[in-house]
């Protein structure tokens, strides 16, 4: 069955009041699929999320969300299509975890409409799925970085959108929660038909969970394909300047990298486009 495209970026070029950070980036995010974005630091990965959501204006190209040009969508309409899990947020006041997750329902409510029983059920379920239900009365300033990331995932799940964008969702997670988070994300794709774009640094997680990968360097896509096509020494080494040894995960058969510190390259990276 052909998977439906929820988000299509075409020739997307954008930057921060200066030279463009991403150049002519094109990709599709399809329902029921996880698209992973890999790339060295400063490659423009987070800029892709900011541009897709309209935080950064497009200098060139277009973004289609659920078949509609993003420019024609109101903010609330957009928030009903896509949810974002940022790496972290700065809350200025001490909201409880429950209050934070409740905010995920705001795009679906009128200014004075109270939360209905359906909303509360979704909020409870989202907190349980993201393993933050036990923290529901804690304030966000009492949480660790990993707990806060899971609260942001719960908020995105409460938003109940067909598309979720995640910016390094496991950067603060312990091993158990890295696996829990990605199992949750995969479950959302497989059983709820959501499309997911996920920015990652961990290539083993990317190979294990993503259906397709994009490799970004200096704001341009330099390779894209299945994990088997991307997680290869001849593709990774030129970008990271690091030899990798690719094996197969004995449990899943996905590519898995093993690094050799004796082959570690400490010299600066070449400035290749």
């Amino acid at each position, binding site marked *: 069955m052909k998977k439906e495209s929820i988000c299509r970026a075409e020739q997307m070029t954008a930057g921060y009041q200066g030279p463009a950070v991403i150049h002519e980036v094109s990709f599709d995010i399809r329902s029921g699929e996880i698209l992973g974005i890999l790339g060295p630091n400063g490659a423009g990965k987070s800029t892709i999320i900011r541009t897709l959501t309209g935080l950064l204006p497009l200098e060139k190209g277009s973004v289609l969300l659920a078949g509609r040009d993003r420019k024609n969508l109101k*903010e609330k309409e957009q928030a009903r299509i896509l949810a974002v899990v940022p790496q972290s947020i700065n809350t200025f*006041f001490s909201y409880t975890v429950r209050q934070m997750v409740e905010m995920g329902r705001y795009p679906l409510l009128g200014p004075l409409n109270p939360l209905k029983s359906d909303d509360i059920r979704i909020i409870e379920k989202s907190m349980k799925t993201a393993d933050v239900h036990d923290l529901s009365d804690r304030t966000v300033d009492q949480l660790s970085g990993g707990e806060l990331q899971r609260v942001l995932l719960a908020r995105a799940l409460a938003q109940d959108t067909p598309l979720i964008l995640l910016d390094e969702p496991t950067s603060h997670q312990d091993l158990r929660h890295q696996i829990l988070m990605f199992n949750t994300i995969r479950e959302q794709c497989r059983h709820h038909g959501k499309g997911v774009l996920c920015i990652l640094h961990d290539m083993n997680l990317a190979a294990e969970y993503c259906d397709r990968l994009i490799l970004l360097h200096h704001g341009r896509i330099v390779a894209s394909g299945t994990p088997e096509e991307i997680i290869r020494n001849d593709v990774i080494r030129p970008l990271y300047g690091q030899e990798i040894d690719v094996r197969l995960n004995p449990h899943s058969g996905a590519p898995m990298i093993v690094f050799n510190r004796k082959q570690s390259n400490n010299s600066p990276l070449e400035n290749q486009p």
Partner: protein
Amino acid sequence: MKSIHSTFLLIAGILLICISGYLSVSFGDLGWITPSEMLNILTIKISGNSPEDRTSSLHQVFWTVRLPRVFLAVIVGANLAVAGVLMQALFQNPLADPYVTGISSGAAFGAVTAMTLGFSQLIGMNGIAVCAFMGAGATTIVVYRISNHGGRRNAAYLLLTGIAVGGLMQALTAFLLLRNDPYNMRNILVWLMGSLAYRSWTYVWVLLPYSLLGLSSAFFLHRTLNLLSTGEESAHYLGLSLFRSRRILLLIATLLTAGSVAATGIIAFVGLIVPHILRILLGPDHRGLIPASMLLGPILLIWADMASRILVPGREIPIGIVTGVLGCLFFLGILKARKTESL
């Protein structure tokens, strides 16, 4: 359970305003008005009979001096407290309030301009209110733009910008003062210090529409304020139009501040003290914070007004001095509590 809790707090708040208001109208230069005398005054007003000697003067003072004063305290207290809540969410900083951000000084500059140019004689209180609104609006925009450091609201920048722009507005106000004759200069100076004294019903009626508009709009914005308090990027991801929300909040906060300054002069720190106490008691959710500020702001201002009449025997001091001292202690307390964090 939650709704019972909210209803209880609402009733308690309204009761406290009534008790505070009763105490405030009960005492003054003519001595205490006992409950039976107050009942008598109300009966006379309703029946339309003419009052007797002591009752006559009490009747006069009650209706023309003490009651408008309490009503003004209620309206201005609610305005300034809610303006503080809006600014703290807008600037994403618990230290922001109309005074700290220089907005009150901008409103005062506008109002003094109107008084100096004689607008107040031409079009009355409305002229002062409109000029105060223009002064406050211009200051808000300047402070907001400059404190937006590298795309982020920076607390230290906000405070420094507020101090700088507020200082400029005070300097310009002082310059305008010198253009007035000594009698006017004294009146404007007393007005600048913030006072509820000698305010007739006219002030109440002029201020009321601005306040009703601002306060009722703020009531509908609790979700906008919650989202903004989690950061602008996060608010955008949850469907908030930053462009529209910022402008609406600036407009309402400016309206509430300017109206209040035009009626009573600068009464500092109410917008800092009230939200801070309420966040400790109720948490940061603006669904409760906005209505609670509409209740605690008036209570604070009624008691500050009573203190301004009691603290110096035989003489009334401007209420701005009382809230200034309270706010200073509060401000230092907040800074001390946050000393380990960066501003």
